């Protein structure tokens, strides 16, 4: 009796201390494919940048809009989703003592579904049957198999989400009265958002499939756009919440500090989960069919997301200052010098945070109706999400990869790889400053997004944009160097770095930390509140769009 207990205990210790090998295989697969997708998507981005600057003509068998569709789908949908699932499944495995066997199986099925879906989507794009961009606004109509591919991707996401819920619920059952570990709390929030956020777009795609097969004749254009953005905007915040999880939980440990506050961190997660979904309307500020009043109400809904981000900004710098002072820093800003600038696991997410100051400010400006009208659908917007997603999120993901991949592959991040990582981070940052900076500026001047090289018949206004577009191409070129470096680093850490143990850094609480209130664990209540906010934001506008709908639109294939 005692012996089996002892054995069970040692098993548990092993699980907590080391990596669970079966789980690691799953999560490494997610990450490996994510970085392959990054490489392909990166090259597609380079081709666009060069074309946009007038430096490169794309072949007719794979034109600018095919390139753009593939770049968007691969990086915005596939890379981020694969990384997010891989990272959070690894986090669940690490903090909850391993994945349940059935959850691991669900992880593999989810992976398979996503790959099948991406194969459908990629094939239709390459064949030229789906040059509809990743937003696929009807009445442009892609091949039905494009939409069916999307359904597979969404099903994969749902399976992964429910796997996570099962694992978390199981842990809670076995640890009554305890708070779930902070990283698992973040994972729960992200998967809740992934599930509820994707419901709208699923309804849209299920309406588009019979239309694409020709079984229905017309489609409601505005309804489709609105359902799409109920998902599109949530997705942005899902990546952001994923990045933020590493800022709160991992970065403090990496710099030798402690968590800011367990309770306030959970409050930020809860707020981001509840407030997120109605933000989608700010993508439709100059659309017809939605009244001025509703657009204004949605300014409030969008801006409310800034509140938890303000909390995060405070928390991050508070942790940096506390840690620096504990290490003996003096004066008002002396703590700044005590931060581990030579450690890429810190440098990459730090730059990501700084980028969010600019990205967040730009986002707040864009959310306000009249200001949005100035920049809507210009390159400003492309610049905006390359700084938010491309730096804030992706640089944090890279920062995670430097320890997560060797942790899973039982290898080590060598000083040489760390140095290469620092170079990678700097090249990426400089590339993005060039690219995103020139996009913002030329967008203010009126240069449109999602448009291949054009002088509009040598129009003087359009010609005056060219110098900025050239800077954009320089940025894109630097970025592809950084992408190749990152790809090399990721696969080196997976297969070739020296064998060893790498820590999964999880920050601990301060010794005198306040206890976290029990109510933070009431996920049922948070989901009800999420649905209530969605209902407040969407029910009336959707009803107006449906009830006052014009006759539907027949399909068009304009490419």
């Amino acid at each position, binding site marked *: 009796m005692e012996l089996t207990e002892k054995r069970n205990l040692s098993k548990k210790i092993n699980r907590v201390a080391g990596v669970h090998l079966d789980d690691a295989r799953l999560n490494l697969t997610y990450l490996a494919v994510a970085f392959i997708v990054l490489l392909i998507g990166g090259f597609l981005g380079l081709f666009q940048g060069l074309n946009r600057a007038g430096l490169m003509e794309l072949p007719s068998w794979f034109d600018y809009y095919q390139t753009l569709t593939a770049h968007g789908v691969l990086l915005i949908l596939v890379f981020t989703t694969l990384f997010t699932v891989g990272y959070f499944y690894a986090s669940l495995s690490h903090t909850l003592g391993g994945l349940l066997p059935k959850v691991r199986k669900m992880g593999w099925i989810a992976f398979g579904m996503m790959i099948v879906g991406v194969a459908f989507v990629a094939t239709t794009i390459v064949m030229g049957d789906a040059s509809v961009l990743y937003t696929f606004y009807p009445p442009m109509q892609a091949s039905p198999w494009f939409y069916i591919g999307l359904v597979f991707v969404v099903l994969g996401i749902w399976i992964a989400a429910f796997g996570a819920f099962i694992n978390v619920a199981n842990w809670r059952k076995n640890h009554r009265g305890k708070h779930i570990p902070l990283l698992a709390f973040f994972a729960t929030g992200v998967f809740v958002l992934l599930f509820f956020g994707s419901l709208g777009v699923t309804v849209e795609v299920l309406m588009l499939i019979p239309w694409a097969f020709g079984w229905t004749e017309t489609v409601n254009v505005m309804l489709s756009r609105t359902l799409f953005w109920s998902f599109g905007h949530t997705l942005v915040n899902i990546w952001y919440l994923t990045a933020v999880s590493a800022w709160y939980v991992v970065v403090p440990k990496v710099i030798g500090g402690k968590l800011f506050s367990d309770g306030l961190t959970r409050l930020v997660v809860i707020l981001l989960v509840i407030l997120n979904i109605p933000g989608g309307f700010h993508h439709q500020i100059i*659309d017809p069919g939605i009244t*001025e009043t509703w657009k204004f109400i949605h*300014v409030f809904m969008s801006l409310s997301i800034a509140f938890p981000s303000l909390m995060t900004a*405070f928390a991050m710098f508070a942790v940096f200052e506390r840690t620096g002072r504990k290490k003996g820093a003096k004066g008002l800003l002396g703590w700044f010098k005590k931060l581990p600038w030579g450690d890429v696991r810190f440098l990459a997410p730090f730059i990501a945070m700084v980028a969010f100051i600019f990205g967040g400010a730009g986002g707040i400006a864009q959310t306000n109706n*009249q200001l949005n009208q*100035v920049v809507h*659908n210009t390159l400003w917007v492309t610049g905006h999400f390359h700084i938010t997603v491309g730096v804030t999120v992706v640089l944090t993901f890279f920062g995670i990869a430097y320890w997560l991949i060797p942790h899973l592959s039982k290898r080590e991040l060598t000083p040489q790889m760390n140095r290469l990582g620092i170079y990678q981070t700097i090249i990426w940052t400089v590339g993005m400053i060039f690219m995103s900076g020139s996009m913002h500026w030329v967008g203010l001047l*009126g240069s449109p997004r999602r448009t291949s090289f054009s002088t509009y018949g040598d129009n003087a*206004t359009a010609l005056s944009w060219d110098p900025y577009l050239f800077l954009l191409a320089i940025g894109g070129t630097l970025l592809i160097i950084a992408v190749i470096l990152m790809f090399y680093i990721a696969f080196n850490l997976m297969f070739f770095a020296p064998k060893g143990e790498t820590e999964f850094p999880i920050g601990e609480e301060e010794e005198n930390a306040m206890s976290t209130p029990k109510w933070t664990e009431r996920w049922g209540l948070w989901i009800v509140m999420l649905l209530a906010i969605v209902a407040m934001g969407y029910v009336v506008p959707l009803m107006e769009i449906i009830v006052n709908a014009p006759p539907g*639109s027949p399909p068009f294939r304009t490419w």
Partner: protein
Amino acid sequence: MKMHRAEEIWLIVGVAILVLSMVFTGYQAFAQGMAPPSNTETLDPQKVDEHPLFSEPGVFEIGENEYEVVLTLQAFSFTPNEIEIPAGSEVHFTLTSRDVVHGFQVAGTNINAMVTPGYIQRISQKFDEPGEYLVLCNEYCGAGHQLMATTITVK
């Protein structure tokens, strides 16, 4: 769970700025009539030519220094293609699409509106400075999207 005093001040100032930006936006939108284009009139997207407004697109003088420009957008052009107006006039654009979603943007002005099939979109602008203004479609609409442009000549 208590917040640090400094965090409270930070959040209060932050929220105050957000509220202020909303007040400005609301004031401009509802008191000054600067709200973004949000017209809710509809039409049958397959019968644009039969619609009384769009059967004859063109530039119409509707008052002293006031013009209405009725435009249809289609892959990959604007109808009419030639728009000329005197400097100092107030111009009301009435827009719809014959096919897919288009964008109506005039570089150097705040004119920016989505033109979706089935809806009549409206946006107004006063043109004070003479010159040639570039009009372009800023929503991807197909293989020739980058060619979809025209100009407004203000004399």
